[in-house]
């Protein structure tokens, strides 16, 4: 294991976060705060409790997930796209590193940032709504799993993308709809029966449901199912990344 290489990439990537502190940390916190003000306070006061939880508190887990997913993807995809774009990737390709080390460096740094961001948003949310966490261990577990899975997913997009448009397309066209329709702002039980069935095809539903369960003990789907689906998504991402490096897809000719 080339630990110095992992450390180098990790430090390099986190340094990018500190350099762009405003976009990296401040802007997601600001936008989440706006959600709390608009949905939690303004609209939420007119929506009744959902499954015994005030609307403001109900949306906390969903909002954290929403931010973590989109930030994980954009951060991890940009992290690997940028060296491809500038050409500096040659150094990583010519270095004595295995793909596992490259991923630990890039995805590890992106996931670290996502988890920090999640913690900051949870702290921010506390200023707007009182909430409690029933299963802190599970909460941290879901947070970490989601961050790692979506950072891997972002890494794949970053390797696949050969233009900035493509880099933006997947998060915008696929992830945003999935997260909005994934029960961030409502319980899927509130949907008509047919759409409840459709919603179960959305992987994000399971992530948000599991995460919300760790807070309040209520869930749209069984928590084991949630965990299983999250691990499945992680496994799929790992398999894809493994293939990318084995074949040198878009990295080596």
């Amino acid at each position, binding site marked *: 294991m080339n630990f110095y290489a992992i450390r180098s990439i990790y430090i390099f990537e986190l340094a990018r976060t500190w350099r762009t502190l405003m976009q990296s940390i401040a802007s997601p916190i600001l936008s989440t705060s706006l959600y709390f003000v608009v949905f939690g306070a303004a609209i939420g006061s007119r929506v009744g409790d959902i499954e015994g939880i005030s609307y403001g508190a109900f949306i906390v887990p969903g909002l954290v997930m929403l931010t973590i997913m989109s930030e994980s993807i954009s951060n991890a995809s940009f992290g690997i796209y940028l060296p491809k774009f500038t*050409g*500096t990737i040659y150094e990583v390709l*010519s270095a*004595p590193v*295995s793909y596992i080390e490259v991923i630990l460096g890039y995805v590890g740094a992106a996931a670290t940032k996502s988890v920090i961001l999640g913690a900051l948003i949870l702290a921010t949310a506390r200023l707007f709504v009182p909430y409690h966490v029933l299963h802190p261990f599970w909460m941290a577990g879901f947070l970490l799993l989601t961050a790692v899975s979506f950072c891997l997913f972002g890494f794949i997009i970053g390797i696949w993308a050969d233009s900035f448009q493509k880099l933006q397309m997947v998060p915008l066209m696929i992830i945003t709809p999935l997260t909005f329709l994934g029960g961030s702002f409502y319980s899927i039980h509130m949907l008509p029966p047919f759409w409840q069935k459709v919603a179960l095809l959305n992987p994000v539903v399971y992530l948000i449901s599991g995460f919300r369960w760790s807070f309040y003990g209520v869930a749209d789907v069984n928590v084991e199912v949630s965990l299983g689906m999250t691990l499945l998504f992680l496994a799929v991402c790992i398999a894809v990344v493994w293939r990318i490096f084995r074949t040198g897809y878009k990295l080596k000719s």
Partner: protein
Amino acid sequence: MDSIISVSNLSKTYASGFQALRNVDLDIRRGEIFALLGPNGAGKTTLISIICGIVNPSSGNVLADGHDIISDYRAARSKIGLVLQELTTDVFETVRDTMSFSRGLFGKPPDPAHIEKVMTDLSLLDKADTKIQALSGGMKRRVLIAKALAHEPKILFLDEPTAGVDVELRRDMWEMVRGLRENGVTIILTTHYIEEAELIADRIGIINKGEIILVEEKEALMQKLGKRQLTLYLQNPIASIPAGLNGFDLELSGDGSELVYTFDVHGEETGIAPLLKLLNEHGIDYRDIHSSESSLEEIFVSLVTEKR
């Protein structure tokens, strides 16, 4: 012969169908400066890219310091430093940070003293904490070399190191290259500029259309370079060279109408005057004389165009 890089039967065909390398065999000796000459698109960069792990070979294999570049890539790559032709640098990092990154990437523990030394050698020390985007093109070139040297490689590849580089940097670079060789580093550089190869290399390889067409000691090439030829167009063809002219390096053309005399320009005497005198005595008349000098450039051009 102690080879530090051993390329055998290496071929590369890109997905587009373009065959960049055809059964290349090449041995680089430990501690030498090897110049790889060739026109654009000859396969120089592809060859280097394969050795360094950026491009996958289609067939054949490469040993770097005894390690296979694929099955034992860690050991092989950690020995190699690479400076690419394009100025592909980070943008927002400082010189010091980007060098530390390179060093770590190649598996070496942090060593600020070594980083400082490389920066000093490359006159980068006063820019150590400047962001790379604020540097000029020449300075960026220095940074790329500094990055490649950050992990103390035993083999250094310089792909077109002097493209777009000013006189001062060129001089610094050759000084640095010589210094590295004194410390036992093997240097392989590619170039278009024949004078550069003459100036710095121990051996010269010429590549064209994906094939190595010549590898020779520079001294041997220089000797060819030092040869001059005098062609005498004879009035009347002769059947053979008269015995009295045995002391001269003469060659008679097939039809006996041209006599070619090869001599060394570096010698004390060219021998032209005695030869002409002897020809006169043997009653051989000539109607015209043509003298030519073979340069490395000429050898290069003729080798490269022959293959077309």
